């Protein structure tokens, strides 16, 4: 096949150097080369949002990005959120648990990463702003109501914590 290219990138704070085919998607790279399986793939054509990750702090679809495009980037996936060793959940993850914001959980990493971006930019979003942010993520199980509740809960907890 095509010539392989070397890419260097940081994923969840860890530096990697790998040789990849130019056509390898970033989703496949993260999932199958780095074995970070939490970035799920639901459509591979950019609609469902299950593969949402942060590239240099901005949400992106790993299924529509090539691994070579991430050369030099800093990436965060859902695995980067909970505390290492203790496994303590990030407040957003905990809010999804507490507000029953998931059923099968396949879409959930995508929603959590989108929420992470949203609350980073807008710690106190209105419902409309939450819906606007999550409008590109599909969930077939929950009907979104508990997801909306989860994001509200996460925002309020994060705000309370930072006010304290």
């Amino acid at each position: 096949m095509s010539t392989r290219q070397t890419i260097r990138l940081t994923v969840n704070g860890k530096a990697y150097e790998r040789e990849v085919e130019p056509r390898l998607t970033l989703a496949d790279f993260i999932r199958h080369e780095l074995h970070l399986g939490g970035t799920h793939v639901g459509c591979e054509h950019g609609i469902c949002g299950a593969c949402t990750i942060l590239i240099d702090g901005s949400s992106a679809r790993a299924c529509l990005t090539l691994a070579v495009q991430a050369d030099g980037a800093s990436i965060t996936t859902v695995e980067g959120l909970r505390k290492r060793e203790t496994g303590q959940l990030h407040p957003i993850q905990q809010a999804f648990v507490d507000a029953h914001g998931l059923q099968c959980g396949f879409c959930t990493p995508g929603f959590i990463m989108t929420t992470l971006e949203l609350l980073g930019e807008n710690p106190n979003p209105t419902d409309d702003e939450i819906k606007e942010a999550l409008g590109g993520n599909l969930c077939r199980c929950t009907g979104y109501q508990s997801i909306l509740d989860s994001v509200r809960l996460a925002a309020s907890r994060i705000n309370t914590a930072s006010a304290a």
Partner: protein
Amino acid sequence: MAIDIPTRTDQLPTSATRFIGKAVNRIEDPALVSGTVEFIDNLSLPGMLHCAILRSPHPHARITGIDVSAALELPGVEAVLTGEDVERWCDPCFTAPEGWGNYCLAVGKVRFVGEPVVAVAATSRYIAEDALELIQVEYELLAPVANPDEAMAPGAPLVFESRGTNVIQSRTYTWGEVDRVFAEADRIVTRQFRWNRVGANPTETFGCICQWDLADNSLTCRGAYQTPRFMGIGRAASLRLPANKVKIISHAQGGGFGGKGGPRGTDIAALLSRKSDGRPVKYIEDRMEYLLAGGGQSWDRYYDASLALKADGTVTGFKVRLVDDQGAGAEGYGTISAAKPLAAFTGNYRIEAAFYDLTLVATNRAPTYPYRGYGPPPHNLVLESLMDVAARELTLDPAELRRRNYIRPEQFPYTVPSGNEYDSGNYAAVLDRVLELADYKGLREAQTKARAEGRLVGIGVVSTVEPGVFDWNAYATVGVPGVGVPEGVKVAVDVFGSVTVAVGFNLQGQGQFTIAAQVVADYLGVDMNTVKVTTASTDVALPHFGQGGSRLGVAVTGAILGACEKLRQTFCRVVAHVMQTEPEQIELLDGRLQMKGAPSHGMSIAEVAGLMLSRSDLLPLGVEPCPEATFVWVSPNRNQPDDQGRCRSYLTAAAATHVVQVEIDRDTGQVKILGYYIVDDCGTRLNPANVEGQLQGGVAQGVGAALYEEYVYDPQCQPLVSTFVDYLMPTIHEVPMTVKDHIVTPSPIAPLGAKGCGEGAIHTTPAALLCAINDALAPLGLECRETPASPRRLWQLLHDKA
């Protein structure tokens, strides 16, 4: 030993339930939000190959030649599978009715676009897909059968030549004196409806890893399997293996809703493993494959239906003629969808007679599969729409018409004309509560005002019954044999007192692991977060079915209660022996086996288990050193159907009424949901958060089916939908945030009084929305009788009128 399953929570051996009935957090969630759950595509096995499938671009064609030589030469390709292999090694899949199944890869001809024709196993999916491009297939095109009219026309091309017809099944059912009630009716309302194809579309598509052991001639399949044992038996049949040589390991699934599919993908991966000398082969269906030809197409229906009424609004008869386009055969058990309405044919109402004329037809569309609800969503849409038409003609309020016809609380258990017995209910109380919640009077006043302003505002008030806890007997009429759907668990206490529950299914989203932990923890007096729930593979699991037919929450509860009861009996014998008394003198309460009347004399569960495993000298005669128990639960008191399909099928009958207010935009045809209110009654709510999640998720799918989703085919039977750009899944913007409340009428016969509750909302939402839309259109004299009521369809309706 008689095992009584408690039907009330106050029968549990606990002074107060600590987990059952509470919206406790789910034990499955910490791993799911961490992204560490092993969905099948997260797993790799040493030496594993990857499968890609070349699919038919034609709806109906003879295969005249296949050339795979170039693909075989591509470095990395290990095996190529064609119809020749499949014909040599396999049988067509089992179907109900029999004889309408395909092979996993096309043999001789293709019957729908997307049908697998050639499959490749290679060292990566990328290479496998490259190889597909090197394969040449020659086709001789055949005339497609695009719809039931074409299929039933004399001289129509045949989808399955050997059958001699495209009609899979055609028969009528008469329940009660239908002719008389229609002859005596003061009013008859009749309408035709068209429900277009929709489907499950779980966010995770199907996937599996199959490994054929050539020495043992056995097969191990890991994958996103909803019903592991059923899947194993099917694979044994299609791959000609003894059933004990097929082992299914079910992984967590990213949703299912009945429409996960999987048999074809599993058989193909299994045969590729066989062809590549036993290397494991992974097949991950992609979304385009799923949309074209996966398990995600359901309910392609043409209805002609009538209601007979008395002048006072009493509904006396209901006739339904259904022609159901099953697509290319019955491989997906889509036929069952047409049989299931028998379980609640006449809904919430005292309708004395009913008639069903059912025709299942094969066409060159993709085969249909189950989807959540499994048939009642379109059926209820027909019944409830006719109720609204009748209300308009009689100038009765639609809520009032329904109320007049409800089965009354004192009439339960109530046998409906189509045979099933409803266990309990209080439909008027549900209606009262939802009308209050929605401020129905206020909604009507607002509607009057809006109409005066020329706005198209409508209200739907729709009641449904959700048959819960399915039984095979409900589907006997389309050729499914058997009575009873066993669900088995093992409850084990270890030497330190920790409790493990082994079940036959894996996670799919409904939270049954949590239900299992809640029930066992309350029964045995342990903390639910210390309970481990684990999935047994089919080689060691007890008989089970898994998710399906709104049954698993109830069934697993029953199984766990049974196993716990057996444990309790054994523990009582052991403790009685140690205390030198009779077992009847010992009781279990809050996790302690204690002397009745002298509770300070006793032992904890952990002490008893430890003693049983480490002090055989203290065991009474005949008690094994095994603080474990199994129990296989099955719905009590089910029976065989009569020749009209009548039987006690689904165990429970939950009920709900939805009230929805919509506005149609005249310029775009877009429906906006202004308010959505739900009151439901599914008996005891084992975990109220789970129930609400099931309701809301069902609403979302109902919104999709009623307003947006549709598998569109062109007149030549070419699918026009192959991505989520064309198949419109509802997002957070389309799904209403609903206002919910509930009442509780426990089931008198189901474990802890809980009723099946996974499908009620999708049973109700499409009907509620269509009724609201038609209420909005009523002043214009228009009716929409086709789903989805998409902007295009409604705009056309409004525009053609102008």
